[in-house]
C-alpha cells in the first residue's frame, strides 16, 4: 500500500485496539525508542524544530546579521502587494495545472499501449523510464537550454522543413512551455506505477465484458479507468506536491533569474532569491509557509474530490 493509502486508512479506521496491540502495549518501549533515536532527533532538529522556527521567522524581519525583529503580519501584508510574487504564483500554477495532467495523461496512454502483452516490453519500459531519472539533473536542464535556444536542436529541425522557430526559452510566451515539456518528458515513473496498477486488475472482468460484447473503448471506460482510479489519484497527489516544489530546471534554463521577464519565475525560485539572494529570511519564511498552505489546500481538495471519482474495490 502506498504512503497515501496508509494515511487515509489510518484516518478512517477507528475503534478499540486489537488484542495483539493491547497485549503488547508498552512492552518494547525501551528498545523501540533506541531504534527510533536517530529518526526522533532528526524529527526534532531537522524537521519540526526548523518548521516552528520558520513559522516564528515569518513574523519577523531577519537578515542573518541582526537578531530577528518582530514585525507581526508585515511579511504577509507585503506578500499581498508583491506583484512579482503574484506573477510567480501564476507561473507555478500554470506549470502544475498544465504540466501534471499532461504528464499523467501521456504516462497512462503509454502504459495502456505497453500493457497489452507486447514483445520487447522491458526494452520500451527502460527507454521511457530513463528520462525521469535524468530529468532532475542540471545536465539535462543544460541540454534543454540548448535544444530550445534560438539556434538549438528544435529550430534546426524546424529549419529543415522551412520553418523559422522562435527562441523558445528567450521568448516570454514559450519559455514556460519549454519547461513544462521537460516535466512531461519525465513521464516514466508514473508510467511504471500505472503499469503495476494495470496488472492488478483481475482478468475475469475483461473476459466477462468480452462475453457481453463490450468494445475496447467500453472496457476502458467501465473497467480499466474505475479500477485504476486509486492509482491515478495517488499519482496525481504525488505529482502535484512534487511539481509545486520544482526548482532546478527553471533555475538553470533561465540562468537563475526566472527570465525572460519573469516568465519562468517559479515560486520556489522567487523564494530562493528572497532568502538566499537578498537574505530576507523573514519574508522567505513567510513565503515558505504560504507554499505549505497552498500545497496543503491542493492536497485536501484532491482528497475531498477523490470521494466522487476514485473507486475502491474493497
Amino acid at each position: 500500500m502506498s504512503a497515501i493509502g496508509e494515511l487515509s486508512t489510518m484516518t478512517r479506521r477507528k475503534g478499540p485496539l486489537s488484542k495483539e496491540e493491547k497485549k503488547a502495549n508498552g512492552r518494547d518501549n525501551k528498545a523501540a525508542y533506541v531504534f527510533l533515536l536517530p529518526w526522533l532527533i532528526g524529527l526534532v532538529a531537522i524537521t519540526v524544530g526548523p518548521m516552528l522556527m520558520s513559522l516564528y521567522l515569518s513574523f519577523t524581519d531577519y537578515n542573518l546579521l541582526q537578531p530577528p525583529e518582530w514585525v507581526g503580519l508585515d511579511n504577509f501584508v507585503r506578500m499581498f502587494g508583491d506583484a512579482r510574487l503574484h506573477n510567480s504564483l501564476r507561473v507555478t500554477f500554470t506549470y502544475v495545472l498544465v504540466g501534471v495532467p499532461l504528464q499523467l495523461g501521456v504516462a497512462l496512454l503509454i502504459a495502456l499501449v505497453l500493457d497489452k502483452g507486447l514483445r520487447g516490453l522491458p526494452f520500451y519500459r527502460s527507454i521511457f523510464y530513463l528520462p525521469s531519472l535524468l530529468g532532475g539533473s542540471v545536465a539535462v536542464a543544460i541540454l534543454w537550454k540548448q535544444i530550445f535556444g534560438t539556434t538549438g536542436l528544435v529550430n534546426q529541425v524546424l529549419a529543415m522543413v522551412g520553418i523559422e522557430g522562435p527562441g523558445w526559452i528567450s521568448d516570454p510566451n514559450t519559455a514556460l512551455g519549454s519547461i513544462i515539456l521537460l516535466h512531461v518528458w519525465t513521464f516514466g515513473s508514473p508510467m511504471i506505477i500505472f503499469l503495476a496498477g494495470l496488472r492488478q486488475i483481475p482478468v475475469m472482468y475483461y473476459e466477462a465484458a468480452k462475453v457481453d460484447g463490450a468494445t475496447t473503448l467500453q472496457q476502458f471506460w467501465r473497467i480499466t479507468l474505475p479500477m485504476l482510479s486509486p492509482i491515478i489519484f495517488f499519482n496525481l497527489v504525488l505529482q502535484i506536491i512534487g511539481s509545486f516544489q520544482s526548482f532546478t530546471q527553471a533555475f538553470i534554463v533561465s540562468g537563475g533569474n526566472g527570465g525572460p521577464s519573469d516568465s519562468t519565475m517559479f515560486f520556489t525560485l522567487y523564494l530562493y532569491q528572497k532568502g538566499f539572494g537578498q537574505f530576507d529570511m523573514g519574508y522567505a519564511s513567510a513565503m515558505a509557509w504560504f507554499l505549505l498552505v497552498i500545497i496543503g489546500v491542493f492536497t485536501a481538495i484532491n482528497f475531498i474530490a477523490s470521494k466522487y471519482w476514485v473507486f475502491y474495490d474493497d
Partner: protein
Amino acid sequence: MTKLQTLPAASGSSSAKDGKSPRRRESPGSLAFSRSARIKGLVKHAILIIVGGVMIYPLLWMVVSSLRPNDLIFREPGLWLESLEMSNYTDGWSALTHPFGHYMINSAIVVLGSILGNLVSCSMAAYAFARLQFSGKKIFFGIMLLTIMLPFHVVIVPQYILFSQIGWVNTFWPLIVPKLLATDAFFVFLMVQFIRGIPKDLDEAARIDGAGHPRIFLRVILPLMVPALATTTIFTFIWTWNDFFGALIYLTDPDMFTVPVALRAFVDSQSATSWGSLFAMSIVSLLPVFLVFLFGQRFLIKGIATTGIK
C-alpha cells in the same frame, strides 16, 4: 522468496514483467482475428518506437554533439559523426578552477555519506515501526508519513541558519547529517513495507533462542531486507548525485562544489562558443546515473511500483 512476499504490487509486475500475463494471451480464434491483432501489434510498436525515439533523441544528440567541433552544434541536428573530437572533453575537464574530477570526488563523498546514513538510520526506524509495540507508535507513524510530503522549502531557511551558526556552511555536513537522522522518511516507509512482509515466525524463533531486538534486527531482519536496502541505495545515489538545491545553498566555495553546482558555474561562466565542452561535462555527470540505471533497473522499477517514489 521474500521478494515475492514482501512487495506484492511489485512482484505482481515482475512476474508479468515480460508482458506474458495470461489474460493478455489471445485466444486461438479465427485467422482474421489474429491478423487484425497482428496489425494492431504493429501499430503499437510503431507508436512506441516513434515516441521513444523522440524522447531519447535529444540525449543521443547531446552525446554525439559532445564529440563534434563546437560550431556544428548549432547547425547539425543529425547523429552522423564525421570525426571524433575529444577536445571538448579535455577542455571541459579543466575549464573550471579545479579539474572536473575534483567535483566528482566531492559528489562521491556526499553520496557515500548519504547512502550510509539512509541505510543505517532508516532501517533502524523501520524496524521499530514494523516490529515493535510502543506508546505513541500510531502518532509517530502518521507524522513520519506526513513528513514524506512536507515541502523542503518550509524547513530550509531555519536549517540554513542552524547549520551556518554551527559553522557548517561550505562543508558536506549539512548534506549528510540529515540523512544520518532518517529525514528521508520515504525510505523508512519503503523499509517498513518490506519488513511487514517478512514472516514473524522468524523473529519468534530467534526470540525463543534468546535473541534480543538488536540481534533479531541485525541477524534476522537485515539480511532478509537486502532488496529494500538495495532500492534505498540506488535511489539515494541518484537523488543525491543530482541534488542541486541543497548544494547550491550550502556550498559556495568552489573547493567544495559538487557536480551539479560545478556544472551551473560552468554554464554561467561559458561563452557561447563552449557548448561542446559543456555538453561533454554534462555527459560525464550523467554517466554514473546511467550506469546505476543499467545495473540497478530491477530495484528501481520495483521500488517505484510498490511505493510510488517520484
